[in-house]
């Protein structure tokens, strides 16, 4: 049976209802729960897009000539496919609305995100950058590309002329829903902000020429086109991940490495036996590169190399610490490049694939300096705050050990408002190395008691969060 006007009207009404069911909660944002300004911006976008889409659909259906459905059913069918196309677009948006609604200000560390954003806004070209936060059901952090949303908005705009553009400078980052009140673990969000900056600065395009040159250098013979593209894509993805790690380290300091170790439970790994009968550091067991990510052990080693660089100059201020996380980082740095491997497969021939993987890995080593250059360029003129950390770590730790929020520090009679990185890193190291000092000061609390440790860890995170809230007010 050919499609008639009644069926199109039905489909349009169904789309109307479908959009309403997605966007209605965005329209009801009033007072409680509270949302940050960037989240509200996201909801306003969804609301305005829903309004524009519905208006377009109503006009579209009203403009249809019922007779044309009979006169040229094929043409009528083709033209009315726009209803389905719009529905598919709203399928995509459906994925993000509920996670954004779940992330009200009681359910994500808004003071941490605000503090990180304030640091990021000091970068050239990012003065107005903001981040809406979503909840994820995965135990992982990720960023949804602003470009992806902009492209999506543009696609809808080709059908719905009055569709609003996706807000410029709005990034979208997601955190695991279960960790919404955790301060230290959520420092991993700094890496996701790095993806936003990497994509906005178009770093992939800048790095591509270097990547191509390195692949050509690593390959003894020219690669088949598909393999060349495959290799380039792998290296560029690894470059982006390393860029984002270094970005996070410059933005917030070694606290990012600690969050990374804790998130993936790398802190207690078994030593790895070698063929020669010796053992490698435990971290060596994480030496495999994946399609999308460099090996965790390589990433941690690269963290240390970067923390040692004069650009940020963090390592000598923390290396004498007693945390087993620092031990792990040192071990990662000492691993030889030769232990890292990449064993994915997209080719039938095993030997060819082995060679291709090796070429890809060598090309990646070759381009590492360019990533560091890209980070230096991104942060030109922005301090890592490691010297402030050196000055303030001890007093901040002392405040925390007495259960006092370190929003203002008195040093030699002068009151100082510490900046974000010193507070976060001093508090994180206090949590890793000196929690016992606090617990020993609490009457009835015992360092052996896991409940006690969890309770006072949570308090240290709360005090850190309060300090960030005060500093960024």
């Amino acid at each position, binding site marked *: 049976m050919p499609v008639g006007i009644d069926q199109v009207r039905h489909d349009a009404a169904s789309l109307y209802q479908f959009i309403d069911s997605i966007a209605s909660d965005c329209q009801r944002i009033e007072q*409680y*729960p509270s949302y940050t300004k960037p989240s509200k911006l996201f909801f306003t976008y969804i609301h305005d897009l829903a309004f524009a889409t519905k208006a377009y659909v109503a006009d579209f259906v009203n403009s249809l000539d019922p007779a044309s459905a009979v006169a040229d059913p094929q043409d009528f069918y083709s033209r009315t496919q726009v209803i389905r196309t719009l529905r598919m677009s709203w399928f995509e948006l459906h994925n993000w609305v509920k996670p954004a609604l779940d992330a009200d200000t009681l*359910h994500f560390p808004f003071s941490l995100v605000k503090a990180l954003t304030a640091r990021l806004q000091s970068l050239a070209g990012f003065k107005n950058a903001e981040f809406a936060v979503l909840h994820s059901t995965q135990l992982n952090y990720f960023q949804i590309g602003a470009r992806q949303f902009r492209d999506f908005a543009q696609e809808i705009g080709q059908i719905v002329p009055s569709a609003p553009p996706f807000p410029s400078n709005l990034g979208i980052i997601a955190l695991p829903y279960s960790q919404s009140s955790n301060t230290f673990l959520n420092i991993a969000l700094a890496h996701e902000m790095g993806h936003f900056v990497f994509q906005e600065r178009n770093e992939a395009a800048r790095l591509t020429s270097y990547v191509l040159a390195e692949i050509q250098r690593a390959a003894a013979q020219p690669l088949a086109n598909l393999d060349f593209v495959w290799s380039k894509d792998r290296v560029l993805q690894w470059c982006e991940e390393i860029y984002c790690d270094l970005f996070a380290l410059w933005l917030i300091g070694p606290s990012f490495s600690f969050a990374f170790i804790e998130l993936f439970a790398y802190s207690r790994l078994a030593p790895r036996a070698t063929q020669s009968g010796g053992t490698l550091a435990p971290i060596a067991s994480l030496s495999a590169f994946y399609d999308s990510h460099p090996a965790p052990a390589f990433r941690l080693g690269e963290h240390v190399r970067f923390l040692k660089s004069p650009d940020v100059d963090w390592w000598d201020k923390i290396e004498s610490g007693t945390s087993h996380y620092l031990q792990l980082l040192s071990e990662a740095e000492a691993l030889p490049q030769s232990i890292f491997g990449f064993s994915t497969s997209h080719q039938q021939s095993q030997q060819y694939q082995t060679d291709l993987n090796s070429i890809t890995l060598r090309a990646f080593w070759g381009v590492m300096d360019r990533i560091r250059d890209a980070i230096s360029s991104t942060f030109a003129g922005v301090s890592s705050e490691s010297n402030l950390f050196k000055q303030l770590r001890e007093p901040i730790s002392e405040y925390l050990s007495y259960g*006092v929020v370190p*929003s203002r520090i008195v040093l030699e009679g002068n009151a100082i408002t510490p900046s974000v990185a010193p507070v976060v890193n001093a508090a994180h190291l206090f949590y890793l190395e000196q929690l016992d000092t606090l617990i020993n000061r609490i009457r009835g609390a015992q360092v052996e008691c896991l409940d006690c440790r969890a309770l006072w860890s949570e308090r240290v995170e*709360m005090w850190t969060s*309060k300090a960030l*809230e005060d500093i960024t*007010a």
Partner: protein
Amino acid sequence: MDKQGFGGHYGLNVYPFKIDNSQTLDDAYKRPVEPDSIDLRLGSHFLFPRVPAQAAIDIRKKSSQSDISVHVPNGDQLILAAHQTVLGVTLEFLKMPYDVSGQILTKSSIARTFMVIETAPWVHPNYRGCLTLEIANVSNSALTLHPGMAIGQLILMQIEDPEPLDSLAGTYIGPIRPEAPLNLKRHTHETV
């Protein structure tokens, strides 16, 4: 009473310094300090008690009474209906010395709107944390609360022959949000 050591910028700590048992107070803070009291401001977090399903709450027993946690960002407001109660918190984090106790009173400008902010006003020596406020609108009209508004006054009293403590003790140590009474062990629902 030496009034040194209290003050700070918006949202910052108010606590005497040093942070150990010394009674030295820090004079680095410059914030509204009246000759006889220190202004305290309203924080952003609130805890609304739910109306219980049972006829009454026995305050001697543990209860399954629930609270609703609400966050009101700076610049927004909380509307408190006539005769409604809510737990609030001071924006300031206080750290009392071992030889000073305090009392918090409703600011007169607030009290004259028939808002009561504190019914358990005593602050013990060595206390540290944001103070939980038992806010009650006893007027016949709804009233708006704005985080950051000056809402209370802290009066300090020197203790004679104080005993320095070698450990921290007390029912509530270091809260930054309003806390429900521990004897009730109430559940907190974090959204409305």
